[in-house]
């Protein structure tokens, strides 16, 4: 449920790094807490994000939730499939449910985020 090749944030985003590109989505925990996702608001390609910047919104039937950039970079691609099929975020949060790709300002930055074991320990401490 929490792949080892990803890095995680306390706001429940994940990032995977390949060369200088980071792919970002929300975690299994986030999609489960949100419930049925019905709307994803995506940023524009070209937008420059700092780590911690809000870059979009995910709405389930009952809740509105902001999503934040795990790392700094420029948005180079967004997952347009989520516009018509936001439920993909629930179905496959680490695969087809990715949200955006950024050209990383610093490919090393992601290493400062939690790894899978640390994130799971963090979740366990959240009393959920």
């Amino acid at each position: 449920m929490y792949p080892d090749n990803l890095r995680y944030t306390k706001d429940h985003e994940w990032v995977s790094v390949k060369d200088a590109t980071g792919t970002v989505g929300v975690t299994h925990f986030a999609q489960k807490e949100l419930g049925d996702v019905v709307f994803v608001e995506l940023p524009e390609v070209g937008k420059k994000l700092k780590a911690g910047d809000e870059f979009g919104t995910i709405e389930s039937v009952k809740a509105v939730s902001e999503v934040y950039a795990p790392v700094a970079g420029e948005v180079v691609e967004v997952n347009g499939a989520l516009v018509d099929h936001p439920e993909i975020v629930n179905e496959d949060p680490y695969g087809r449910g990715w949200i955006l790709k950024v050209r990383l300002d610093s490919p090393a930055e992601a290493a400062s985020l939690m790894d899978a074991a640390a994130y799971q320990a963090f979740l366990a401490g959240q009393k959920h």
Partner: protein
Amino acid sequence: MVDFAGWDMPVQYHGVVEEHLAVRTHAGLFDVSHMGEIEIRGDGALAAVQRLTCNDAARLAPGLAQYSAFTTEQGTFVDDIIVYCLARDRYFICVNASNASKDFAWVASHVPKGVTALNRSDEFAQIAIQGPEAEAILRGLTETDIHALKAFTFAESRVAGVPALVARTGYTGEDGFELYCESGRAAELWDTLMGVGAPFGLTPCGLGARDTLRLEACLMLYGNDIDDTTTVVEAGLNFILKLDKGEFIGRDALARQKAAGAPRRLVAFEMVDRGVARHGYPAQIDGAAAGHVTSGTFTPFLKKNLGMAYLPAPAAREGHEFDVVIRGKPTRARVVKTPHYKRPARSAGGSA
């Protein structure tokens, strides 16, 4: 689980969408024991109910129920309610959980000597079974001929051996029943219903699906769509406003407003642009403030972003477009016919 008016309640069991669709296609089971119950009894009970409510309770024979409201002198809502006539001198009134104490104080302060008002909220649990299969599930569990029970009628009966008031009422826009029983026996009734209902696709449903279902059917939620600042006329509930029944609290104000026309009206709308409208979002017409969204969500059966909003009367007509401000961005919406969802007519009984 969430806190709702002091009750610890599930938002969902498996998922709002799944539960919502179960009610539209098969059946759903709701523990709505949080709802309040007030009984008014005595020789002057009918006169007291008539004075407190805007619908005409004189039309109720024993076994009949009606949607109604407790109204203020200004014609606004103390609460919206269902009045069940147990006898001509006994009325059982289902009220909103969050209003139960306030309602009881209001009722108690307005009933004349000789009429007794009882807050029976703690004595009663309520389980709602809603959906096209509801009748089939209940049929074998009660001696009452529930096929013959029409909408807004009820019977004092037993369900699976548990004494219950079985009413063909609901809050989902679907056919179904609301079962009022002694609090201590609700768990047993729930378990029996789930056991018998499972082969019919009966699904336990939480507050989330209850809200999306009622919104799809444009049924009012007190605190969102109506409250003590909005009137019966503004809410468009003319079918429960019986100005010719005689004096009642708020009658003069409502008669005046009905004659003059309300300055604002509650409308149903659908989003034209992408975006989910939510309770409290501002409405704009040509960039100017024009009211607010009272309820809004993505509706799982119709698969649209729908809502209700108060708009100035000239804009409150079908087809009129306005903007809902979503996170600072005006997003186009269009006034549509109410309700969003109306269940298909069925050959089975109870769809009156």
